[in-house]
């Protein structure tokens, strides 16, 4: 959900863009972090832990902690809390550690 009536803040928002999350179409504002758009859409689980397959969400939201790694446009280990949303992105839940070489 978006905050619309804040007593102090107004939010400069760019245009709405479409992207997919695990194949499902969603919208968000261009340039905001992917994690913000997902959170607005109610998505809380962003990846699975590599060993015990536990669900994980974001933790720090400023690109420090690596809790929010996802696959974006086929590339694994993207920190979606700081990666800007663009039109047509393919965002997927990351399972396991993600293998860069496998993508080449």
């Amino acid at each position: 959900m978006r905050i619309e009536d804040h007593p102090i803040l107004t939010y400069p928002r760019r245009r709405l863009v479409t992207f997919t999350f695990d194949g499902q179409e969603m919208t968000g504002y261009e340039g905001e972090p992917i994690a913000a758009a997902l959170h607005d859409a109610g998505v809380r689980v962003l990846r699975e832990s590599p060993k015990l397959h536990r669900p994980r969400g974001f933790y720090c939201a400023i690109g420090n902690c690596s809790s929010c790694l996802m696959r974006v446009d086929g590339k694994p280990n993207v920190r979606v809390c700081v990666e800007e949303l663009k039109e047509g992105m393919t965002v997927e839940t990351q399972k396991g550690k993600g293998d860069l070489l496998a993508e080449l």
Partner: protein
Amino acid sequence: MLSYEIAVIGGGPAGLCAAISAAAAGASVALIEKDRHLGGQLVKQTHMFFGSKAQFASTRGIDIADILSRQCEELKNITVLLGATVLGYYDDQVLTIEQDNKVQRVKADCLVVATGASEKVLPFPNNDLPGIYGAGAVQTLMNVYGVKPADRVLMVGAGNIGLIVSYQLLQAHVKVAGIIEAAKHIGGYLVHASKIRRAGVPIMTGYTIKKAYGERKVEGAIVWQLDDRWQPIPGTELDIPVDAVCLAVGLTPMGELLWQAGCQMIYVPQLGGHVPFRKATLETTVPGIYVAGDVAGVEEASSAMVEGRLAGLAAARRLGYHNADWENKYQDALQQLMALRSGPVGEKICSGLKCVVV
């Protein structure tokens, strides 16, 4: 390779002030920030600052970020690199930087490291469930991006960030079920605490979190009371249904680049973790490398700004920029720091600084 006299790493309050004071003294400065905008944590701080006029008292953090960013833009000898993460430091004073998926190198005669701090976590069962967030993370989500973080939150920690973020959650129409604090007393400013209590949010001191529960995300938390020896008391458990738990249990300095550069470091709990030894000028044990702000010891934004100013001045002087005004500005910064640290809150910081100032 790009070359500057001074490279400032981190564009938060400390880095901004370092860049401004060094450039005003005459040095050519690169201000390198991994975010796409300047301001560091200020961009999410909607509360008004304390301190004195020199530290923008009664101005909101978000507005201070704008003021400092503008001052930076006006100084022609500051080059701002945004979306640029410093990855490494090499002995010949070369930094490697990633910007737009490209790695480039920057050479600088002096460095000011102002990389800030990161939020700590707390060990308890299910602390990795989605919905367990850093309090600062929730602050970022709602204040910078305008996304409602949750419907009902349990805040863990009644220090300043716990109190401030609780109040900001209320402003964003999020329910705060309560604030729990392991210590027997509230750590943050009482002005903030009473504001929150007046809004009907209970602050429970002497309580900690036993565990979080939920299937694929947080559905609630069990909290319990601590005795005088900080041991949990069985039978005092309370079940608090929430969809998010915010941890406001402190910050720890992000000193990776200092370690890499070989600065001598020491663990000082009062300053939040491992911090570098430094002179009064904020120069570390590696000549020409200065520190300022949270990375030098977790404190708050007002002192981060003054430390930045101090480090910027000292670095400029090292390079020979030393006019009549310099000494005045330097003494003024030292005095401001002393004033900021004079209250009871400053005692902890001062006892920590005794261990690191050489």
